[in-house]
């Protein structure tokens, strides 16, 4: 496991396998919370934070608890409960010890439990056979990819608000068309990562 391999994992998560624009994970917050840059940033930071934390907790659970006891099939149940509990704990801890951070991120935390990107990243780590450190970097890359998509899209949405689409396209449909174009632009990153150190 070299430094280069880790950089490749992070860059792949951000650009090539972007969770939101390439794999359709976390679409609900992507469409719902991206109206204002401030909210988009807050939500994304909360997602990165929870992704890292969830990976740090679920990977050892899978490797040291479920696999040795032949309980691999409980993965889905255990992971989602761990994530739900974790989000609650983080919320309580932030409220108690870091009120400024809680004020900034607090409203987004309950939404994250049902954000499929978080569950997906923990399962993808196991499925791809990553080591613990690789898993953490994969979570970081995926989270940063979500962050990038959210920030870019909140900028795009600012312009949509000012535009005048056909009546039936007003609202959600035109937003989705914009997402399609943004997603198209991410196809330009195909192959970037493979040649990163070539």
């Amino acid at each position, binding site marked *: 496991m070299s430094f280069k391999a880790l950089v490749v994992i992070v860059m792949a998560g951000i650009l090539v396998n972007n969770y939101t624009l390439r794999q359709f*994970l976390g679409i609900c917050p992507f469409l*719902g919370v991206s109206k204002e840059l401030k909210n988009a940033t807050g939500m994304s930071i909360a997602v990165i934070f929870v992704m890292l934390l969830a990976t740090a907790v679920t990977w050892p659970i899978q490797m040291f608890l479920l696999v040795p006891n032949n309980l691999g099939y409980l993965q889905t149940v255990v992971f989602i409960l761990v994530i739900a509990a974790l989000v609650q704990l983080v919320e309580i801890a932030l409220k108690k010890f870091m009120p400024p951070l809680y004020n900034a991120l607090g*409203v987004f935390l309950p939404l994250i439990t049902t954000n499929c990107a978080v569950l997906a990243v923990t399962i993808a780590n196991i499925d791809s056979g990553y080591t613990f450190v690789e898993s953490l970097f994969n979570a970081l890359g995926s989270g940063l990819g979500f962050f990038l998509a959210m920030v870019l899209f909140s900028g795009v949405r600012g312009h949509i608000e000012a535009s005048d689409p056909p009546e039936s396209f*007003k609202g*959600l*449909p035109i937003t*989705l068309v914009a*997402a399609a174009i943004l997603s198209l632009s991410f196809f330009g990153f195909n192959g970037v990562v493979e040649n990163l150190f070539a």
Partner: protein
Amino acid sequence: MKKSSKLSILTKGIIKENPVLVLVLGTCPTLAVTTQASNAIGMGLAFTFVLICSNIVISLLRKIIPDKVRIPCYITVIAGFVTIIQLLMQAYAYSLYEALGIYLSLIVVNCIILGRAEMFANKNKPFDSFLDAVGMGIGFTLALLVMASIREIFGSGTWFGMPIPVLKDNNISIMTMAPGGFFVFACLIALVNKISKGKAIRKKEFGCEGCPSASTCGKTGCSGKGGEVK
């Protein structure tokens, strides 16, 4: 009178409150697995199975589950059924299991299932919840099938794997990729908007209430949920 109300519970999920095209919930699987019509059917059936079972169980337990911890309870029930369908698929439909991949586990966090548990199953009798789940399941499957058909026919020039004469040689492969998914979905919703105009589907009634986090998220997080609440 009573009979017609049962019927309306069943049918409202199919057209009037179609979870995908009207309520705009559960967008992740809608966009992700609709590259082939057969995948869409598989996903729809798996989803319907989980929704029916979890709706019945949650409806039966609705007086036992304490209000404060209801969301974790729902998630546990749903996750249990998702595991069952995962194991069943692994045993009897392995190619489909491979094709759906991670999105099968992600049924757990599908907002439609949690939303139905929160909005319907915890307030209604098991049989009504069953009908509601059947209707919603059919609505979800149909929406997925429509979308997958469009994407497969234009993207790969096939339908359920059967080649279509002219399109087979002139396929628009971008349709099966991510941008095509967003674009087809946008067009379908625009079409629904166009058709439903005048009949006034009041999105306001759904939007946030369909979201299980609605009680906690306040206005900030949900402000744009489901698009354009007016």
